[in-house]
């Protein structure tokens, strides 16, 4: 079958290109729309940003800014895409960029324009939300302007909901089975179809937003001949209330998890603020970040600290695996053959819990952690009853610090206990050196973040981040 989608409001039909062709490649080489630029092909510069119609957390159709270098073409089947050319030349966001001198060399500009396009249609972002504006635009790099004029343009247009004729339409959700150039991309519309596809395509890689998988194509130049997408299965997406907790569908977008988590799980919300970029969070899913099982993934430490349970689904039904038993070894998980991650369940966080998350990287935004950490400590009757201290970047898998936890439990939550826990970290972890940080730095951070957690929670059990702050630890 061909891939059918709307491009700048016009129906297009694509066939005969490899399933791993990215939207960016196709736009530039096949559609000859060269306004969308390639600056890196790894989702780190945003020059290729386009708007993709989707459904927002409120169930309404909405535009999302995405990196077109990370979108495999078959994922567009039944959807609508807007590129910079589709805005004409005098859209309010374009006017604002001209007026404020938001472009110098112009190469990053179409990407910024499309991020601003999403921003102008957002209902949950305002001009006074400094952190929100940074989050919206941190996925677009500019080397010329120093960003101040672009920020001014953003302040002018954000949330203005212009009547511009660009109406987002919900994805049709129809099943896709695209075969071309020796590759196959199956995107079933329900779980039964998913298990059929997995049976029919042994060895297939499971994909949703492809924000990590696409790098294997773009950077490692791998052929991925068999891909099964879980993106269009309604039962895998969305957050629902359970008895005593929450169930987060595996394909729930991180942008939506971020918006939802603000109240129930400030520590998760805090981590997602510094997780990747808006464009990535508009495609990446919670399940993808968990199943990737990267030692430097940022949500696993938070989920470990929150005592998450992984819900695994197969034709045989669902089974529950505590997340701490999910990560087996470097990039290896408890997922069996024919099994997918269906959801993550989080128990409610007791009000008496101390909880916060931290992330240290070379650059604050859109950077991979040197160390990520998330802590939950409960104090009952004056002593620590539970301590879950979870780290990323310290071992081959996202890991709890068993020794440090033991050092806290059963004692008052005080400086002496924290000092002992910090000392125990030295036996919990033997971090490595790489270009994100030396072993010394990682080991030092691990302890200092725990110290910072103690200091930070003296006044607020579950502290949230202010807009601008000197570091991951609020002090």
């Amino acid at each position, binding site marked *: 079958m061909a891939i059918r989608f709307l491009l700048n409001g016009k129906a297009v039909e694509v066939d005969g290109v490899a399933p791993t062709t990215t939207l960016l490649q196709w736009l530039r080489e096949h559609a000859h729309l*060269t*306004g969308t630029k390639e600056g890196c092909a790894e989702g780190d510069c945003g020059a290729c940003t386009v708007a993709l119609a989707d459904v927002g957390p409120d169930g309404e159709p909405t535009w999302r800014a995405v990196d077109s270098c990370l979108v495999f073409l078959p994922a567009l089947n039944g959807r609508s895409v807007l590129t*910079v050319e589709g805005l004409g030349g005098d859209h309010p966001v374009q006017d604002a960029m001209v007026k404020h001198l938001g472009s*110098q060399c112009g190469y990053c500009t179409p990407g910024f324009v499309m991020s601003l396009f999403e921003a102008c249609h957002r209902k949950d972002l305002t001009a006074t939300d400094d952190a929100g504006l940074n989050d919206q635009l941190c996925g677009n790099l500019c080397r010329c302007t*120093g960003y*101040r004029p672009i*920020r001014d343009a953003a302040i002018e247009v954000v949330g203005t909901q212009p009547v511009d004729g660009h109406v987002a339409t919900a994805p049709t959700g129809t099943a896709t089975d695209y075969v071309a150039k020796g590759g196959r991309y199956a995107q079933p519309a329900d779980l039964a179809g998913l298990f059929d596809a997995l049976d029919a395509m042994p060895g297939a890689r499971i994909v949703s937003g492809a924000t990590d998988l696409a790098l294997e194509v773009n950077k490692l130049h791998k052929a991925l001949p068999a891909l099964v997408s879980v993106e269009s299965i309604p039962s895998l997406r969305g957050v629902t209330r359970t008895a005593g907790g929450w169930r987060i569908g595996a394909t729930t977008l991180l942008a939506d998890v971020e918006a939802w988590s603000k109240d129930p799980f400030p520590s998760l919300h805090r981590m997602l603020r510094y997780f990747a970029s808006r464009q990535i969070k508009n495609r990446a899913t919670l399940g993808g970040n968990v199943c990737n099982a990267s030692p430097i993934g940022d949500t696993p430490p938070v989920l470990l600290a929150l005592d998450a349970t992984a819900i695994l689904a197969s034709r045989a039904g669902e089974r529950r695996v505590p997340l701490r038993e999910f990560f087996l070894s470097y990039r290896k998980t408890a997922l069996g053959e024919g099994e997918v991650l269906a959801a993550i369940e989080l128990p409610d966080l007791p009000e008496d819990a101390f909880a916060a998350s931290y992330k240290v990287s070379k650059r604050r935004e859109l950077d991979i952690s040197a160390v990520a950490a998330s802590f939950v400590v409960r104090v009952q009757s004056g002593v620590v009853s539970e301590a879950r201290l979870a780290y990323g970047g310290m071992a081959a898998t996202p890991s709890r610090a068993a020794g440090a936890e033991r050092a806290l439990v059963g004692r008052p939550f005080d400086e002496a206990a924290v000092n002992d826990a910090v000392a125990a970290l030295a036996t919990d972890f033997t971090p490595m050196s790489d270009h994100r940080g030396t072993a010394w730095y990682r080991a*030092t951070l691990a302890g200092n973040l725990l110290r910072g957690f103690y*200091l930070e929670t003296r006044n607020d059990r579950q502290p949230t981040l202010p807009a601008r702050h*000197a570091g991951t630890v609020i002090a």
Partner: protein
Amino acid sequence: MTPLIKLNASSPHESARKHVSGAARYVDDLPAPQGMLHGFAVASPHAHAKIVSRDGTRARALPGVHAVLFAADVPGSNHIGPVVHDEDLLADATAQCVGHAVAVVVAESRDIAREAAALVDVVYEVLPAILTIEESIAAKAFLGSPHHMARGDVDAALASAAIVIKATARNPAQDHFYLETHAALAIPEEGGNWLIYSSTQHPTEVQGEVASVLGLPRNAVVVEVPRLGGGFGGKESQASQIACWAALGAHVTGRPVKVWLDREQDMTHTGKRHPFRTDYEAGFDADGRLTALRARVYADAGFSLDLSQAINDRALFHLDNAYYVPNVDFQNFTCKTNLLSNTAFRGFGGPQGMVVIEDAMQRAAERLGKDPNVFRVASFYGDAPRNVTPYGMRVDQPRAARLWEELSASSDYATRSAAIAAHNATSSVVKRGLGFMPVKFGISFTATLLNQAGALVLVYADGSVQMNHGGIEMGQGLHTKMLAIAGDELGVPASAVRAMDTATDKVPNTSATAASSGSDLNGWAVRNACAEIRQRMAVVAAEVLGVPAAALVFADGQVGAPGGPSMPFAKLANTCWVRRISLSSTGFYATPDLAYDREKGFGRPFFYFAWGASVVEVEVNALTGEHRVVRADLLQDVGKSLVPSIDLGQVEGAFVQGVGWLTMEECLYDKRGRFVTHGPSTYKIPTIGDVPADLRVHLLENVEQDGTIHGSKAVGEPPLMLGIGVVSALRQAIGAFASPGHEIELALPATPEAVLRAIMDVRARSAAGAPSLHG
């Protein structure tokens, strides 16, 4: 539609509407000529290796492959290089760095070319490699020729100095990270001629290199540049190799060939800002005034000379920064290593020089527990005899003192300094610092011959105008300024003037758009060309209108005598055509009064100095080493601004780039000489959240400059060095975690890890002792 552009008035960038709509074209966006093939370079995986054999048989067998080319396939010279031809375009006897091209594959598609590149069989014999400045110094592997400047008696001055600082200052490399990676498209034309589209800051150099590689005279090669998606020096000399690969591929296949580098290739084939090591001794008198500076300056050139000698020389020219140093002894060494050949980058050695003297200022103050600005202000250039540089050039109108006075007032320096001291006294985890950075930057190419420019202006019979000049529009707003100048000179709205893509068949023998010189040089050339045409038109207008030519005013699209008769410019153009008057002219400019004797280290290398200053406030977290700029106040002397909005954009953009260089952009090579931070996932340039919410940028007022185009000054590079103020601020904040009296050892770039190390190091040396739970 061209926005309203007028001289001395703010306006958007001339291409802004094209930028925002995606209509602006870059080399890789040009429609593919029929039959176009793609070229892909095969890179050496070894830092230094003898090439034992090479074989393209397997690669050629891949369907879709048209050619696999080695050094022996080059019809002309295989040697390239901007100053001396010391690089093999395709490595011949030896590969000199990881990333050195050994072969070029030409194929139907880029994917096929890449696949074929992996099938090119090259047998290497690995040779010992030099991977650090220190190894290069030990091996005396110097390139170029050392430059020496001396004045006074440094030994005597150091012997009598109240404070002597002896230290080693290092600065890091920096990748240009222009958003548009290198690209070139070579199109064979009839009669053995060539059209090359190149993303270069220096089309004349690409023209010369392509001609040399193909064994042709330069008139056989036309190089055209639509615009660049950023350059920053990275496309000054290093665009040539990419264009030559394309031309070579097109020469052999007879088909157009495009070479476009993806980000990883771009970062692993091309050089960076030079890392420097400088060993220095500085002396201060009891008043904090600099009395002597001895410096031995070592630049990591990488595997070839490229522009390294000139960059290293500019470092010497800027070791003094804004300070008068009576006794100096400067010497530089350009060190060969088997790494990517480092190249021009905004500031061109100037930042590397300034970092040294600012380190001396900081150390002196830190040792004595004083405000470093006491040392800075006491040492400023001033009235005679404190107005002569180490190389004997008089500093006219020294502006550091004025900048300090105005900026310290407008930035509330004293009040904020006191507030920071109070904050630091009570806050244990987060400390703040306030840094001040003055900048004096010499304007002109230090190679005097390069200070020339040409233009070609064409007026059509309908009054519309085409403007050509030798400069490249790479985002800096050069075309905007040139349109303003042309419109002003011809008395027409800038919208009536079209800025043409830069091409070597319009203006020959151009210099690179570099050294901040774009508008200084091309501005005069454009103005001179327009003035010539205007003069011819005025003769005709005088006849038609019956007024003396001298009384005519060209303004607002009208030509006439004030209060007298007038006619539209368009009508006059038509009349000139009817009367067979030439309506096109070249314009030319050569900067006057430059004379520098490199052997003696003496003379006037610069036409003038650009000045600026910054006040930067940071906060630092002692638990993680993380930091951020809270506020920055920038004040820049751009003379009388040609287009103020463009100049402000240059100032703030350059500042952020400078802060990125010194705080987060880390260029890392592994032990085998492979550049490993080769994409934005690992090489971090500033993003929007790194820019202070409170950024106050102003242009110094009433500073019209004599002799420059409309009284303006260069702006491209100087404000990058305003970013050095962040180091001063960080050092103050770091020092606040310990007792006073300790020099701060902060490695650059000041990543969170480097800052945490510096904090722990100074604490360990201070009476405050080891870190406690409460910071």
